[in-house]
């Protein structure tokens, strides 16, 4: 089981390099390059050409590729001309913001999704089940940017101005201007305030999918013989469902965790964009638009790595939740 996972992880390394290589060549096909960052009004074509040469952009494609690959394999992600700093530092600046947003959202999405899904399965066919099915489908199929805009409309704009609610949440960014001057506690509160809407958006969208998945899985589980055994034993219904049912019902949900896991690093591009959240998603979009190739390549590699890590984690989690997998050696 462990060796199987290890083998798969090792196999992922060439795959990830392949993906980065593909991105390298595809982006090279697009017109324009990073030298345009230095373009200023009144600059002569000769000057631009000079800049381009100094950046090594006039070398043949294969040479540039070889240079990038060599540095990359040595752990050097390169230099971002747009941000004027090493790629590593730029990514390390964006990463914590994405981690905070995505980990909170993932936590609440699974918590709410599992509770709702179990409730639906237990009350299958009831009015409550139908209503919750409608709600989860609504959020599951909702475009995230639209939901984000609607939440902004409700909780940020209308809340204060139209309905005189005593609170409203900030629309964008991770903190208010000048928040650095606040006392530590107020600074913390300000940060939390800014987290609410983006986390809520991401949570609602992910929770819808989790709930639908858990409902299906639990419906299958609660018809199993061992649930009847648990009842025949004299266990209270809550323990029958939450212990004997849920432990089995969550096994397929592990897959979903593997799928959502990469969000921790990649963030969700659209949500970060709408909320001007300075995380990885936003950084990637900006970098693609600016032709900031080293950042895009490093980001691609990281995201790919997260997908692989997510799968690996899911494999290991399977072993934790399902003893039948733990004890079979692959």
């Amino acid at each position, binding site marked *: 089981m462990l060796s199987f996972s290890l083998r798969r992880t090792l196999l992922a390394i060439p795959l990830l390099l392949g993906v980065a290589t593909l991105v390298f060549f595809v982006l090279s096909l697009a017109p324009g390059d990073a030298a345009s960052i230095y373009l200023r009004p009144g600059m002569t074509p000769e000057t631009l050409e000079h800049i381009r040469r100094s950046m090594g952009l006039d070398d043949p494609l294969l040479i540039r590729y070889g240079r990038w690959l060599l540095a990359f394999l040595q752990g050097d992600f390169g230099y971002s001309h747009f941000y004027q700093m090493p790629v590593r530092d730029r990514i390390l600046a964006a990463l914590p913001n994405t981690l905070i947003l995505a980990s909170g959202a993932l936590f609440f999405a699974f918590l709410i999704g599992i509770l709702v899904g179990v409730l639906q399965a237990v009350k299958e066919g009831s009015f409550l089940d139908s209503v919750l099915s409608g709600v989860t489908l609504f959020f599951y199929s909702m475009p995230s940017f639209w939901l984000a805009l609607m939440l902004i409309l409700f909780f940020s704009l209308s809340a204060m101005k139209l309905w005189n609610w005593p609170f409203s949440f900030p629309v964008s960014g991770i903190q208010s201007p000048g928040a650095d001057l606040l006392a530590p506690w107020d600074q913390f509160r300000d940060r939390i305030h800014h987290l609410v809407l983006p986390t809520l958006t991401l949570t609602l969208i992910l929770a819808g999918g989790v709930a639908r998945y858990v409902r299906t899985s639990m419906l299958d589980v609660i018809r199993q*013989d061992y649930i009847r055994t648990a*009842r*025949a034993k004299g*266990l209270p219904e809550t323990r029958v469902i939450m212990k004997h049912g849920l*432990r089995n019902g969550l096994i397929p949900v592990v897959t979903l965790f593997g799928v959502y896991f990469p969000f921790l690093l990649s963030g969700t591009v659209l949500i970060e964009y709408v909320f001007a959240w300075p995380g990885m998603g936003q950084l990637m979009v900006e970098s693609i638009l600016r032709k900031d190739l080293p950042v895009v390549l490093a980001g691609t590699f990281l995201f790919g790595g997260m997908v692989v890590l997510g799968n690996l984690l899911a494999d290991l989690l399977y072993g934790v939740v399902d003893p039948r997998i733990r004890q079979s050696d692959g």
Partner: protein
Amino acid sequence: MSLLEIQKLRTHIRTAGDDARAVDGVDLLLEEGESVGLVGESGSGKTLLALSILGLLPEGGGAILPGSSIRFRGEELVGMGGKRLREIRGGEVAMIFQEPMTSLNPVFSVGNQILEAVELHRPLNRDAAKEEMLRLLGEVGIPDPEARAGDYPHQLSGGMRQRAMIAMALAGEPSLLLADEPTTALDVTVEAQILQLLKRVQARMGMGLLLISHDLNVVSRVCDRILILYGGKVVEAGPTQKILDAPIHPYTRGLMGSRLSFDDRRRTLRPIPGEVPEATDWPRGCRFHPRCPEVMDRCRREEPRLLPGTERKGAVEVQGGAPGGGRDVRCWLLAGEEGGA
């Protein structure tokens, strides 16, 4: 007061069309320490009867009709819920099922699942409960209980799994054990061991036992009395030996003829032709009449009652004895000319 007294039990399954009358007016008496066998083909309603006792009918899958009564030591179980029902389940009345593989939870170790039952029904602290769990594993003949307790169901053989199920059922020291086809999924050699085990623990703990099986052989090895079920009704009931020696109802005789025996190996098997009709659509008259080799006109028109009797055909001696004590048969062959409904 009897340990278990079932009166006029009717359990129906709701379907799109007519209700399936799966259990259709069954009376059953089980005294303290007695073992009673319930025999019938698939579709005879025997499993639903057992599930009805502990209120374990699948949701939307079956309902006990008003007028039915199931009394455990005088306490009415029909309609009971809540805490008292949970105390009885596993504590006073335990149940084991046909498929030990699917009936044990695959993600918990067998020790854990037995321990859960011990802690639920016995006033023991953690350590004592654990010791009791190991003792139970030993009691049901699982070798090296300390090591096996940590095993998951998939690591055990079918026979060991059923032993673990029995250990779990014994955890609450029940006074009645319901065993629904406990050996059907097992090898014949293992079957014999499990039956022996059931017999032994029943005798040692003085438990009542309701053993349900499609196999007359299985039941006759363990039970004091046998009830033969057909079409949701009891067609013959009586002491095991009497039924085996002189089956009266044509269906019982059919079951005897279709069972394998080591004693007379040259005897040809005589299966009962046809199959059990759908419970939504019982035939008029006697429910067995389409398959009965001795069918008469009357069988097609009128349904016979369950009558006490000792001999078949002609001179039937009617007993005025205690219900369940002697022999009850539901067949027109017994009624002669005058005893009709």
